[in-house]
Structures are given as structure tokens and as C-alpha cells.
């Protein structure tokens, strides 16, 4: 069993390295675009924040607020959306017996995680200097950041299975997730919504994730009713169900 896990880790490592070096070889279209994309998203949300003062919560540093919300969200978005493309691009590699679809996806997810971790650390350091804020509970922030990647992988497999059963499913999910950004605490925190809708919004594990991230980061950030236990249950549940579907797809739903 340990030998199998060791082999899989080795394969994922090799695939992630190959992806990273392929992107670096063409920098302008590789990492360059990731940083540019993140910068554009960040800048547009900053403009919104400063232009519409009502978005700001008193006592909450706006740049740190955005960094802690936007980058983890972008990590999730980039991770859940990579499955079909990675498997499609890696068809030639799947002819090697040692590589499975799961390895390809995990290798790619690892590459995305590395890129966004660099981005997150860089922007968080800048925000920290600019607003003089340091994370209150860094380990919690790190664990929640990795959790975003885990949920992205699991959710991506669920989405992949759905789209293999019913092709337009990916489109619908795309529309839904654009809306999800608004109700997941990326721009608006939970307390900005009327308390009457909280019970409905709190079904969303991503909202728990974003709120907890800020609560672990900022000293005076108050967030009502979010739960680490609920988030953990959801993350493990999504990952388990996603991996279950991946096993099912290998035999029953080939690409």
C-alpha cells in the first residue's frame, strides 16, 4: 500500500514538474498570464471597493480583505476548471501504464497550487506592509488555503462526471459559479447581507472558508455562525465523492 502511494506521489511530482517547466519555457503565456489575471481581478475589485465605500467594513483593512478573499477563490476556480482540459491534453501520457487520469489532474492541481501560493504570499506580504497587518493564526490560514485546492479537485471531478453524462452541465455550472463568487464572501462578507438570508447562505462551504480565512487573519474580524467542523465535513465529503466518481468514470464513463 505504501509502495503504491509512493509511486503515485512520484508520478504526480513528475507531471507537475513537467507542467511547470512547459509553462516557464513560454513565460509570456504561462505564469505571466496567471499573475496578470490575478492582478487584473485584484485591481478591478480594489477600484470597486474604493469607489463604493459601502463595500468596506469599518476596521477591516480593504487590501488584506481582498487578498485573503480573492486569491483563494481564484485558486479554487482554477483548480475545479482544469480537469477536462488536463485530461484532454494528456491523452498521449495516458498511454503510459503508470499514469492515470487522477495523476494528470493532481499533477496539474499541484502546479496551480504552487503558482497561487507564490502569488498569495507575495500579495499578502505587500498588503501586510501597506496596511501593517500580520496573520493572527498563520497555520489556520495555510490549512484553509490548501483546503481550497482540495475542494477544487473534488468539485472538479464531480463536474467532470456530470459533463460526461450531460455535456451542457459544465456551462450551467460556469454560470452558477459566477454568481457563487458574490455569495461566497469574496467581495461581500457575511455580515453585509441581511441576517434573514444567513441560514441559506451558510449552506455554502466556500462562504465558511472565506469568512474563516479572514477571521484567522484579522484580529478584529467578527464573523457570525461559521463553522470549521461544517467546512471540514464538506471538504472531505466533496473530495471523497469526487474521487469515487473518478473511479467510476475510469471504467464506465471514458472521455
Amino acid at each position, binding site marked *: 500500500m505504501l509502495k503504491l502511494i509512493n509511486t503515485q506521489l*512520484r508520478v504526480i511530482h*513528475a507531471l507537475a514538474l513537467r507542467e511547470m517547466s512547459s509553462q516557464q519555457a513560454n513565460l509570456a503565456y504561462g505564469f505571466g498570464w496567471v499573475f496578470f489575471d490575478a492582478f487584473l481581478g485584484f485591481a478591478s475589485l480594489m477600484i470597486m471597493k474604493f469607489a463604493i465605500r459601502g463595500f468596506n467594513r469599518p476596521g477591516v483593512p480593504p487590501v488584506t480583505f481582498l487578498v485573503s478573499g480573492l486569491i483563494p477563490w481564484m485558486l479554487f476556480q482554477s483548480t475545479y476548471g482544469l480537469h477536462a482540459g488536463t485530461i484532454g491534453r494528456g491523452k*498521449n501520457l495516458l*498511454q503510459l*501504464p503508470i499514469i492515470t487520469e487522477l495523476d494528470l489532474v493532481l499533477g496539474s492541481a499541484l502546479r496551480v497550487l504552487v503558482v497561487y501560493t507564490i502569488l498569495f504570499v507575495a500579495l499578502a506580504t505587500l498588503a501586510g506592509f501597506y496596511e501593517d497587518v500580520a496573520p493572527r493564526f498563520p497555520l489556520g490560514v495555510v490549512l484553509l488555503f490548501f483546503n481550497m485546492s482540495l475542494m477544487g479537485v473534488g468539485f472538479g471531478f464531480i463536474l467532470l462526471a456530470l459533463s460526461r453524462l450531460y455535456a451542457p452541465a459544465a456551462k450551467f455550472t460556469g454560470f452558477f459559479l459566477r454568481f457563487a463568487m458574490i455569495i461566497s464572501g469574496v467581495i461581500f462578507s457575511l455580515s453585509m447581507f441581511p441576517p434573514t438570508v444567513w441560514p441559506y447562505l451558510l449552506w455554502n462551504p466556500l462562504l465558511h472558508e472565506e469568512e474563516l480565512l479572514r477571521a484567522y487573519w484579522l484580529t478584529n474580524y467578527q464573523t457570525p455562525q461559521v463553522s470549521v467542523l461544517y467546512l471540514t465535513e464538506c471538504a472531505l465529503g466533496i473530495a471523497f465523492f469526487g474521487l469515487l466518481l473518478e473511479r467510476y468514470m475510469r*471504467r464506465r464513463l*471514458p472521455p
Partner: protein
Amino acid sequence: MSIVLDNVRVGGEAGDKPLFEGLSLQIADKSRMGILGTSKPANATLLRLICRTKQPDEGIVRSDVRVSWPIPLSAFLVGGHTLARNVRFIARLYGISDEDFPRRVVDSVELGEFLNKPLSACPRTAKGRLAFALGVGLDFDMYLFDGSFTPVDKPFKEKAAQITAARTAGRGFLIATNMPAEVEQNCESVYVLENGRATYYPRASEGIEHFTQLLAMEKKKQQRQGEKPGVEDDGEPLEEDVGMIGLAAVSIVED
């Protein structure tokens, strides 16, 4: 230790007759086995089933030996990457940490001078040679060969045959081909593929004899089909004969 296929079914392309139906075979490790089949796609599919890169629609494939990919598979090689980088990727996948491995592999097929050149900038034969060298350069319990033991590279054929003989000494190998000559000199026993099933011949010569008859019958049928009336000079069949030719094509597959 062995490879077992039990009652395997693999469907054909879009409503065609299945490639395999009720296919069962057993290959012991360290056996030197040939598989003779008239259809190249069926041979390739069988190798993919054995190395587990394809799942059967029905039936069971069991294997407890480390098998290679079908040599000389080259789909995983990237033209823009150097030979060293292509080899290093495979080395990482299979856990080879020896720094000299790329040099050794490339030297073994007389490509040493191109080690740090992109594959696309190398001579046309380089891809086939590198694919061959990588396949036989790794340690497996059983080596799978698709079509031939050596690359289609005449000046290199003799040396390739020596490398294959040295690498497979004391280990198992399996070749799936439609060329009896490849099997005659190297294999102890043979499976002949016919009507989607495999028949075992403990002595290779008996299997080759049966397969030669099959090939002759197939050739005759193709000739008969070529002489069919109603086929216009441009190769397009007349409208009223389309159904009949379709049936003839099916009967060839059935035989």
C-alpha cells in the same frame, strides 16, 4: 505471477462488430509469447488491455507483473523538449535517480550527439530510436512489443535486435503482430486471434501455420472483393451495391 484476461469484451467503433468477445488468455511471467492477429487495431488494443491503459467493456483483466508500455510507443515524447528532458521525465516517473540515465539511454541508440537538442531538430529516425531505447531501457518483468521487436530503421535494426535480446534475457516478453516472421524466431508459444477470441498453441510453429492459412484466406477475400462488379473506376460503388459491399466487409471481419 501472470497476466490473465477472462471473458473480455471490447466493442468496435460506432456499431461495428466487437474487437473482442469472450476473449480469455493467460500469460505466465518470463514466457516468450507471440500474439498473431490479422487486425493491427485489435493487436494494439490487446496490448493496451494487458498493460491496463484500456479497460474492457466486460470481463476481467488481472496482472501481478510489471509490464512495459507497448514498445515502440512514442506518443509521450515532446518534439520541443530535448532528448535529455524527455528521458528525464520518464526516469522521474519510474523513480530512476541515476544522473547518467539520459546519457546511457541516448548513447545506447547512437543518439549521443543529440542529447541536448530538441527532438524535433533531430533526424527523422531519432523519435523511433528514442522510444525504443526508453521502452527497453527500463526494468520490467515483461516487455510488450507492438508489431516488431525493432524500430523501422534499417541501419539500426541489427543493433536493436541485440539490445532487445540482452534486455529481455531472463524476463518475459510478448509481441502482438501480423508478421509471423517476428514470432517464428523469438517466441516459444503463440496465441492466434480469430473471431475476437484467442486460441493457444504451445508450439509457436503450429500457431504460425494456422495463422498463415488465415492470412491466405483473408488475402483471397480481399481479392474477391476487389473484383466485385458494380464498382466504378473512381472507386466509388454504385448506389445499389452499397449494401452488398457493406455485407462483404462485415464477412471479412467475421472470418
